[in-house]
């Protein structure tokens, strides 16, 4: 399990109210793969409140990535949208929810140069 990923998702569930998700309602499933094993996160977003679990359920948007890549995303080192364009993050369903989720991710290190 990616430490930064856990920290990010658990941080979401601890926030009483996330203003960036004020107008968002929907479910996002994040399927992370490491050594052939899939780790599941399910985010149920209800107008600013986020319920985080590992339940197996259908979601409005499913995000597939490797555990290592998502950990870098959760640390702000990797841009989720660019990774999606590269095919390293695969999105099924409502891609708007990825954009919403991305807004909650931390900033990259200063002076990031490609």
């Amino acid at each position, binding site marked *: 399990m990616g430490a930064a990923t856990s920290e990010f998702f658990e941080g979401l569930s601890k926030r009483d109210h996330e203003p960036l998700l004020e107008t968002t309602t929907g479910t996002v499933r994040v399927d992370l793969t490491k050594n052939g094993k899939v780790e599941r996160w399910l985010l149920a977003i209800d107008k600013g409140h986020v319920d985080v679990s590992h339940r197996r359920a259908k979601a409005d948007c499913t995000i597939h990535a490797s555990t290592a890549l998502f950990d870098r995303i959760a640390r702000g080192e990797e841009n989720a949208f*660019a990774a999606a*364009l590269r*095919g390293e993050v695969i999105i099924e369903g409502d891609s708007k929810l990825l954009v919403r989720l991305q807004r909650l991710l931390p900033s*990259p290190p200063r002076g990031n140069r490609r």
Partner: protein
Amino acid sequence: MSDDLVQILDGNTFVVSDDRGDIEASLTDPTGLFSFDTRFLSRWVLTVNGQRLTALSTDDLQYFETRFFLVPGTGTVYVDSKLSVIRQRAVAEGFSENLTILNHDEKPVDLTVRIEAASDFADLFEVKDALEKKGTYKTSVRDGELVLKYERAAFGRATVISSSVPARIDKTGLTFKMRIEPHGEWETRLDVVATPVHGGKLAKGRGYVRVRSRVGMAANLDRWIDDAPRLESDSDSLKATYRRSLVDLAALRFSPPIAGNRSLPAAGLPWFMTMFGRDSIFTSLQALPFTPELAATTLHALGEWQGTRVDDFRDEDPGRILHELRYGELAAFEERPHTPYYGNADATPLFVVLLDEYELWSGDRKLVRELEYEARAALNWIDEYANLQGNGYISYKRRNEETGLENQCWKDSWDSISYRDGRLPGFPRATCELQGYAYDAKVRGARLARLVWKDEELAQRLTKEAADLKRRFNRDFWVEDEGYFALALDENGEQVDTLTSNNGHLLWSGIVDKSKATSVVRHLMGRRLFSGWGVRTLAEGEARYNPIGYHVGTVWPFDCSFIAWGLRRYGFKEEAARIAAGILDAAEFFGGRLPEAFGGYARSVTRYPVQYPTACSPQAWSTGAPLLLLRTMLGLEPIGNHLVVDPALPRGIGRLELLDIPGRWGWVDAFGRGRVDVA
């Protein structure tokens, strides 16, 4: 775009070919099938019995569909053929092409028809900058399909080509052999599908390209025109320009994947069919009285992508509205920062301006409530992130020095900001119009805070800040000796003192002291700035003035339309009518389709407007210019639940009726008659 190229499109999928329908692209040649900023076909050449064809005519049926009438052979003087070839092409998930061959002879004919196909999968930026590819190509033939594939790590794109009549397919194309009876015909349909590749597999059917049927697209265009206000006038030219604008605006609609089926105006066709903060906002403002849904979608989509982080590569800050979003390979691998790129200094205050103007017209407070967080963050950006010099003005200086933009205002070419003697200032630069937009955003933000967000404290703070900004601006930017506003303050806070069209945007924003307006208008309408067609970007007599310099002397129809709005705002009705007359006269020379810019030569010298050679046509904010000029000529202003009409029309237009203008009032009609002498 040169005249002998033919283009069709739907959203950001488009085909550019020669007048025979053939595509023979090189890395730098801008023909091909493009989708999501990638070229999916760079070669598509038709031969009949080994011969190329000659175009008799090309019919642009709709913006998404065209028809080529061809005959075999490339005779230069006289064509006598017993065969006709018709290619009818429409944009779909790529495009579909109905190929028909007619035999006019009394004898049967045996033919070999060949389509050569290939793709370089160039990124749009590579086509512009001629860069080398880093991935690998793979071509395969299977199940009656030719599959062209490009892969780089997990990134993959493919083109799948098939035909309704079975063909002999090899890796470079499709071959058909047939006999056509006397006066008979032969037909096949060719399908070219552009698709992403995930894990080596084609994402066909669940890719990012939304398909609309040809019939659906035609019905959609009809409905679009029907829904817009109807224009009646003695001026046939104005009627033609209005219709051209509506059709072009329809073609420029773009549905980003996050916006569902709703669309916003992309910046220009075909190379800028994507979200641009500035262009989408300006065009939405121009089109508000005609197609208000564009503004709603623009606000939604730009709000979704609003910056939340500090990202130096993307020049992103919390609250900043994006500049440009791209989907191609270079963006994907972060060789370009467009995922999205945030380097502009105007779209963020303009986002608030559009939100308020949209509410004034539509009464849609629900959207204002939904975007409260984003609007507050945009207002916060002005003081927290854009005040780079600590002097209370918006300045810009890129943090991405390799691939970011130097000039982050609408005049974004390298030499657009200069002193009178031609020197270029250092960075940060605080151009004047940015301060106007910031002022307007605060004034309008205060109104929304009071009316919708019920936050009296914020309203009072913004009102006070706006008043303070206006006071300082009229002191610090005013060029006392000349009586106009400086183009910018440089990195030392000193005036960049050139005379420019930016003064008109200042009138539009309302930041200009009433006592200074007459002097500003005298300059805008004076010999150095006003060419007779419109207002030059840079005044004659400045060191860098060049009548065909991109932002240093040409006339931009979009710029002029906002200047006309500014003139109306300060009560200069007749001057606004003169600008409208000049730009609309120019539109007539361009068949109703205004270019991005035209030469700054005096009208009395050239008699016709000289087109500036640009790659994109139509350009969204040029398309929107006649719409905004209709608004300014009729003096349309929403006041409460009413639409006030206060016409001041150039005499040449005669009678003008704009019927069924949508808004919070339902639908109302506006009437006017040309009484202003503009000559």
